[in-house]
């Protein structure tokens, strides 16, 4: 049984086929990358697995369970986390305050607990705080836990988004361009963080444009072009795949672009 299995998935927006009959498997504990030119359907593919979009046809399985029609928040409870291209953080609040809510899905306190501040509420607030602190430590931000988000750097915001996803206790994390808009040194740091996540047992699936980063860390790469899968394999296979070179890398044998 594959960890995550996507079978013949297609998504049409009116006349546009954003994702075209893609079959794909994600292996547990590995780093899988999805690459492709702009508009290739990478983010849409994420949204299909995640549940933001319902596919026109095809199915998605998570640990053998059909999750094609599962609402997004229930997928999160099963252990599917994701980050977005643009970070949606609460700027006026502190770093830690942004992460605490990430553990909300593992707590049960309701309105009643809130108003009467029950034992359960206090216990779960404590747990959520601990979990948030652990997540921040994991991404190396525990020292700035009490700092307002509006004052931290772009790279720290990217890490914070990962910490937030981590607080949900995920089995798999979908990262949508985690290294966009940050410099090469920081990119390296982020690659290290992703390896660390995979080593801790969390399956990683990422969309990324930075080839050097991808080639250095991915176990498997899928290449999408105009919604269709044109190649799949290890970084070496992808580098030498003539179809990929022609369609995506524009005739250059190796892309050095950062």
């Amino acid at each position: 049984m594959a960890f995550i299995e996507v079978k013949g998935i297609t998504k049409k927006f009116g006349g546009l086929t954003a994702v075209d009959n893609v079959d794909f498997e994600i292996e547990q504990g590995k780093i899988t990358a999805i690459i492709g030119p702009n508009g290739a359907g990478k983010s849409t593919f994420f949204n299909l697995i995640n549940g933001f979009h319902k596919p026109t046809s095809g199915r998605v399985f998570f640990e053998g369970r059909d999750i094609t029609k599962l609402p997004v928040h229930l997928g999160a409870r099963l252990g599917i986390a994701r980050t977005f291209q643009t970070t949606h953080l609460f700027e006026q609040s502190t770093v830690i305050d942004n992460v605490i809510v990430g553990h909300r899905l593992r707590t049960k306190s309701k309105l009643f607990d809130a108003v009467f501040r029950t034992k359960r509420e206090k216990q779960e607030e404590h747990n959520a705080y601990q979990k948030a602190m652990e997540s921040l430590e994991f991404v190396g931000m525990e020292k700035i836990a009490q700092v307002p988000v509006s004052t931290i750097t772009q790279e720290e915001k990217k890490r914070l988004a990962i910490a937030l996803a981590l607080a949900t206790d995920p089995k798999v994390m979908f990262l949508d361009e985690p290294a966009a808009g940050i410099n090469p040194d920081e990119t390296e740091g982020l690659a290290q963080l992703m390896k660390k996540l995979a080593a801790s047992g969390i399956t990683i699936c990422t969309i990324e444009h930075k080839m050097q980063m991808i080639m250095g860390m991915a176990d498997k790469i899928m290449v999408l072009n105009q919604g269709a899968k044109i190649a799949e394999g290890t970084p070496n296979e992808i580098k030498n795949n003539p179809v990929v070179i022609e369609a995506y890398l524009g005739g250059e044998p190796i892309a050095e672009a950062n």
Partner: protein
Amino acid sequence: MGKILNQRTVIAVLVIFALVFPLIYADNRYVLHVMTIGFIFAISVYGMNLIAGFTGQLSLAHAGFFAIGAYTLGILTTRNEMNFWLALLLAVLLTSAAGLVLGLIALRTKEHFFAIYTLIVGYLIYLLIDKWDGLTGGVRGLIGIPIPDPIGPLTFESATSMYYLVLAFLLLSIFISVRIVRSLTGRTYIAIRNSEELAQTLGINTRINKLVSFVISVAYAGLAGALYASLTRFIGPDVASTNMVFNFLMYLIVGGIGTLSGPLVGTMLFIWLEQFLRSYQEYHLLIFGPILVLMVIFFPTGIVGGFYKIKAKLQHKKLPKESKYFNPVPEKSTEK
């Protein structure tokens, strides 16, 4: 620690002030009446703050729900001669039930569509009250709504006793708001305000949470409406008018939307400004309008939000550069 103590002192001073206020103005019924009305409106604005300020869904049906609360109490106590307290409870429950039904439909829309939809719902409630002569008395309104029935030796005949009754409900409303906002449930609401998409990926059922938040906020409006009916003892369809909801919104925005003390600050400010500018009649809007515009441009989080922003900036400046990233948590553990 100093900060919390400070905040506590401010709250204690305010509560004591509110408690002794009627003693200072013992023979000035007008001042007490204005203050009591202000408290009632503040309860409603706290409700609006919960859904608009913390959950991020701008509901403009609040005057409608305020009116449902007011009319339920009015009709039950005049026509059915029901006990005030039972009628008050039923008014809050009926308003919440109406909120639940309308919320189920309204929350299928988002952002400005939600605001427009709820604005229309509010207007429909106004029309319903205005035209349904048989039930609501139409434009003539409801007259002779009784004062609250006494509880044992406690009677509510004097302006002072009504003041204290309303104050008690206001304190309870604020208390519940604070508890909700500072809980995991409150964090959930704030996450939804922040980004609904992100909240969903964090496993939050946004639909249920928005609905619950909406129903509580509506219950606040119903409670405020019921208290209003029994204070003024006369209600007309005007309580459901769109002017009313835009007044609430103005109090909320100027006081500080999404802050815990904003509704009280905004409501009190405007209630008294309105009294001082009374002689200018409708021209007082010439002053309110620019205030609102300036606030939205320069202090989008209102007086309270602006205050905290300035305070945070000053604190940030005071700290030496290296300790800007000061974190009290590990510091404490090293002290041990």
